[in-house]
């Protein structure tokens, strides 16, 4: 480094796009190391969203120990900072760059077409764009299965959901949760409370208390911290850790949970870049091999019959025989949204803005 002046460095930086632009889609040489950059919007903690994002690049490092070098930046909350760092990662020669949240998707959509010496992938995004692939999990397949467990275990027939923000990902997850519960227990209802924050443990805890006070005895949501499960356990109520295992903290009353496994997305993208076959794609995968949703261990107190029911439903979903959003489905107002013999098309699931019949709670009117 010592021999370079600032001016020389600038020259090199300016020339880089033209040099590498020529060989953009060509495969990497056999001995070339693929530089991968990842920007986490939040901090990588013990569990929750960013943790699973981190597990994916860790899996990538493991899959190609000598061929991949991953640079990770975490806790980049401000989008202006993230944009600057995405540019920086690109100019530092990272050929593959991952974004981890929906907020970054908006920035990447703008940046990716201009930074053509890198390939971009973002987790959670609406559709692929020029030079930007997206991958997202069919979380509703997981919540449909945890819903079955909830529907069987509830005594009050009241389930509770602590929602972060009323975005489609959360809405389809909670809808499927109740549909799963109602598939085994038609009397089940679901109460929803919105925390209006991705992480606000104090409020999430209060929300759990409010739900329990109103009779909910199985709780779920999309927590990023163990606080919801802990609050439920304190009151002797079941909780379901969708998006993560909180059993190190919630020792007794975590009923079941699923994980988000993005490793196939990271490894697949890296392999495609190495082979020179990378294309911007939109992948939306759920259960099954190579999928992003993984069912894991259940609480020992969950009866084997219920676990078997969940397993059967899981297999049916993987085989394509069971679609969680198959009709007839009514919305809260009682209007039929999905006809008896139909299933909600993917496009409508991804943009869903209504709650199914039996959900007690509201969405903001837009």
């Amino acid at each position, binding site marked *: 480094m010592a021999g370079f002046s600032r001016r020389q460095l600038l020259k090199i930086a300016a020339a880089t796009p033209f040099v590498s632009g020529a060989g953009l889609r060509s495969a990497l040489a056999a001995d070339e190391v693929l530089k991968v950059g990842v920007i986490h919007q*939040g*901090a*990588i*903690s*013990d*569990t*929750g969203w960013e*943790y699973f994002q981190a597990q994916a690049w860790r899996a990538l490092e493991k899959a190609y120990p000598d061929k991949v070098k991953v640079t990770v930046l975490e*806790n980049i909350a401000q989008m202006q900072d993230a944009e600057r760092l995405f540019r920086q990662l690109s100019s530092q020669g990272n050929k593959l760059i991952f974004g981890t949240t929906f907020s970054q998707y908006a920035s990447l959509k703008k940046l990716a077409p201009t930074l053509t010496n890198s390939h971009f992938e973002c987790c959670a995004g609406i559709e692929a764009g020029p030079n930007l692939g997206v991958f997202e999990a069919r979380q509703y397949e997981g919540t449909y299965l945890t819903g079955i467990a909830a529907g069987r275990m509830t005594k009050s027939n009241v389930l*509770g959901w602590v929602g972060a923000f*009323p975005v489609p990902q959360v809405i389809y997850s909670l809808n499927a949760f109740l549909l799963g519960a109602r598939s085994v227990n038609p009397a089940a209802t679901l*109460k*929803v*409370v*919105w925390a*209006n*924050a991705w*992480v*606000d*443990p*104090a*409020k999430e*805890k*209060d*929300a759990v*208390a*409010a*739900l329990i*006070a*109103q009779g*909910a005895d199985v709780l779920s949501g999309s927590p*990023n*911290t*163990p*606080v919801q499960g*802990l609050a439920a356990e304190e009151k002797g109520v079941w909780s379901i850790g969708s998006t993560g295992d909180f059993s190190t*903290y919630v*020792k007794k009353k975590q009923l079941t949970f699923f994980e988000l496994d993005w490793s196939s997305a990271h490894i697949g993208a890296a392999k495609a870049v190495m082979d020179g076959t990378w294309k911007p794609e939109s992948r939306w995968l759920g259960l099954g091999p190579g999928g992003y949703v993984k069912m894991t261990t259940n609480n020992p107190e969950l009866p084997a019959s219920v676990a078997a029911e969940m397993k059967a439903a899981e297999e049916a979903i993987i085989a394509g025989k069971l679609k969680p959003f198959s009709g007839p489905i009514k919305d809260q107002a009682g209007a039929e949204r999905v006809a008896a013999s139909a299933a909600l098309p993917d496009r409508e699931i991804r943009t869903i803005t209504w709650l199914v019949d039996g959900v*007690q*709670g*509201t*969405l*903001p*009117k837009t």
Partner: protein
Amino acid sequence: MIGQLTQLIIATLVAGTPLVYAALGELVVELAGVLNMGVEGMMVIGAISAFAVTMATGSLTLGVIVAIAAAMVLSLLFAVLAISFRANQVAVGLALTIFGTSLGSYIGKSYVGMALVTAPSPLAGLITKIPLLGQLHPLVWLSWILFGATWYFLYRTKPGLVLRAVGESPASAHAIGYPVIRIRYLATLFGGALAGVAGAYVSLVYTALWTEGLIAGRGWIAVALVVFATWRPERCIAGAYLFGGATMAQLFAQSAGVGLPPELMSALPYIATIIVLALISRNETLMRLSVPASLGKPFNP
């Protein structure tokens, strides 16, 4: 219904307690004529240091003590800059909040998302025998004792009178021989200590976990409460519970299926607190009388 109401009341007391501590501390600071806007920063430092210590030792008491010490160090920094060097109090307070919040994130990096599994404190055994309120944490009880003690100190003792005199007219207090600077230092340290307890309460009792943004503006609410409460301790505590109560009520209303947009519901506690406290303080003359006359003004003996 009765069950729900008690639940709501208990939850309100739990949610209001950090504000009670922080606002009482800030009240004493402001009555001495010092405006420390760094409550948020001191709470963050209190929260993370308490969490880290309790995580390592398993002792809640030790956690709270360290939180008090850590937040007092921060308030001492404020006192040196704003009282001794007579820097602008608002600017130093804001800097303290930014500093405390960032330092808290830095220290807390390896604790993000972790939760605390603590043994109940020794006091808890005694209190739990009391029906209903027995389920409240000892720190909640302590906040009530502290409120009584603060009120008594301010309005029934000579040192309390001296403290208020220093806030009203430091020149007069100085002229008759009271150590204005020392009293202001002590008041600021007291405010720091209580902000530390408030932070520790949030990370140890309220959520029992650490994550960034844990304090989520509660320090600012405390500063605002003191102003709206027209510098009266009983109004501070009422305002704190009003805020906690409105927060809880909106969550209860949501889960009961009240058809208001959740965003509006989330804003409700702030709106309710502002309206009620603005009504209380609508009398302008009274308001002007209750402001410590030298609030925010540096004193040069």
